[in-house]
């Protein structure tokens, strides 16, 4: 149910962007070339290096978005998405060049030495003043994390979390995920910051903590290494959306957005998400 609405949201967002760019999304076109107005054929795309697509990300690039800090491997969710977009635009794997750009540099105004950057950029109005974003390729999911020694580590469904003491930061979608989706028997614990919540988790005062998925990967990977991801909660509230970042008023924005929209409509993005976030990175879907 939730996944269907997310697919719908991605599709809609893609469709809107495509429509505003003056193209109609092609339903059954074998090639990604869009026929109206602006051509998105590989030969006519004004990329930095003609015939090549230069994609940027940060150094180091973290799991599970990239694998082993090697974006060119095609492994990891964002690497896979980047290659899928490149393929939609007609670039073979050999035509893709990677470059490294710091996160803060990328969202700052000014000329960019990449065609697009993929680095977990949340799409915000503020950032849109300085840069362009493609249609969203990922809607952030809320995730339950727990200590490996916790009673809820390894549970598989939402129903199994009903008896858990869960916590979240105040005023966040994470808190909504507890009250609206998981609905545990015990009152959720609320904290001023994720730092306080993490401390309570470490102390064993909480069975599980709800944070968004990128934060969950960071906490379990770098901050609390004896914590593990229990699973992803169905979509709730108004999630953050990740978009590909391009230079302000880049001539590529509409084509890249169109490609992302088509990938969303075809269900490719959902498959990649399933494969790299749920299966490989171990953030299973709780239903």
């Amino acid at each position, binding site marked *: 149910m939730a996944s269907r609405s997310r697919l719908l949201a991605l599709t809609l967002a893609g469709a809107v962007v495509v429509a505003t760019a003056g193209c109609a999304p092609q339903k059954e076109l074998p090639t990604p070339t869009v026929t109206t107005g602006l051509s998105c054929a590989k030969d006519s795309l004004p990329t930095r290096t003609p015939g090549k697509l230069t994609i940027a990300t940060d150094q180091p690039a973290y799991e599970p978005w990239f694998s082993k800090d090697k974006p060119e491997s095609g492994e990891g969710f964002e690497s896979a998405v980047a290659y899928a977009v490149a393929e939609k635009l007609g670039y073979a794997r050999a035509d893709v060049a990677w470059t490294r750009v710091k996160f803060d540099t990328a969202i700052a105004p000014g000329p960019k030495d990449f065609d697009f950057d993929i680095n977990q950029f949340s799409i915000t109005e503020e950032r849109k003043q300085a840069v362009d974003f493609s249609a969203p390729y990922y809607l952030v999911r809320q995730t339950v994390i727990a200590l490996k020694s916790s009673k809820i580590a390894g549970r598989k469904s939402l129903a199994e979390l009903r008896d858990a003491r869960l916590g979240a930061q*105040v*005023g966040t979608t994470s808190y909504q995920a507890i009250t609206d989706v998981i609905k545990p028997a015990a009152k959720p614990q*609320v904290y001023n910051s994720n730092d306080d919540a993490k401390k*309570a988790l470490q*102390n064993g*005062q*909480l069975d599980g903590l709800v944070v968004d998925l990128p934060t969950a990967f960071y906490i379990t990977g770098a901050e609390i290494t004896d914590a593990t991801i229990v699973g992803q909660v169905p979509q709730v509230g108004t999630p953050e959306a990740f978009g590909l970042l391009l230079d302000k008023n880049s001539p590529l924005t509409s084509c890249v957005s169109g490609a992302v929209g088509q990938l969303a409509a075809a269900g490719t993005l959902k498959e990649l998400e399933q494969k790299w976030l749920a299966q490989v990175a171990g953030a299973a879907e709780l239903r």
Partner: protein
Amino acid sequence: MTLLDHVPSEAQLRRSAYRRRQTVYSVLVAAFSTAALGTLLVIAVTGAPGWDRVRRSFLDPEIARDALPTVLSGLWLNVRLLVCCAVGALLVGLVIAVLRTLRGPVFFPVRALAAGYTYTFRGLPLIIVLYLLTLGVPGLRLQGMPPVLVLGGVALVLTYGGYLAEVFRAGIESVHSSQLAAARSLGLTYRQTMRHVVLPQAVRRVAPPLLNDVVALQKDVGLVSLAGPIDAVRAAQIATAQTFNYTPYVVAGVLFVLLAIPLIAVTDWVTLRAARRQSGG
């Protein structure tokens, strides 16, 4: 001539009539000045250019209605905590004050410890005490760790016990030494003297500031919410985050004032009674 046959003189009648007139007159003046001030305030606030926006975001009746149940259930936590912590802090304060006023060189370490306690906990910001107790102590992973509410309560009792101890001590030291000397000369032991002569007078004298600290405690118990539990203000914060409207805070504020009114009324009454007794009334 009995009291019943008493006929007030002409002058007395004039005097009481004058007093009645004066009373009516002063009530009328008070009513008029209050009405004038109220009108001025209403005009100033509702005539302000931003009044409409403020009213929408702080005084929305529908949002207030929706937020009331959750804020009330949060307030119930405040009330329970307040009762337990007030009793605990009064006891701790009294014990510490008695320890600080013990006589004799043998009790020096006890006096020093009690003094150190009041210095420390009056100086330490409550939030830091709360953090240490509610997030620090459970990190020790000891057996039988009490729930976070109990730990938060302990933090409040420790902090407010420090304030109340000083209030009690001021009361004890305000009892004139002749009282002590008289009690001892009657053959009472030190303990009996404290119990029957000094403490009753001391507590009566400092009842107003004690209650004042309890009123302050009422607002601070909500701070345990930083360790997870949802109190009235936290419930209002959550409701505000969901609606982007500050009305829930106003609801919580009104409930807090309503909760404080009985306490403050008792404080005023006790103060008045103490003042009357002091002035030999």
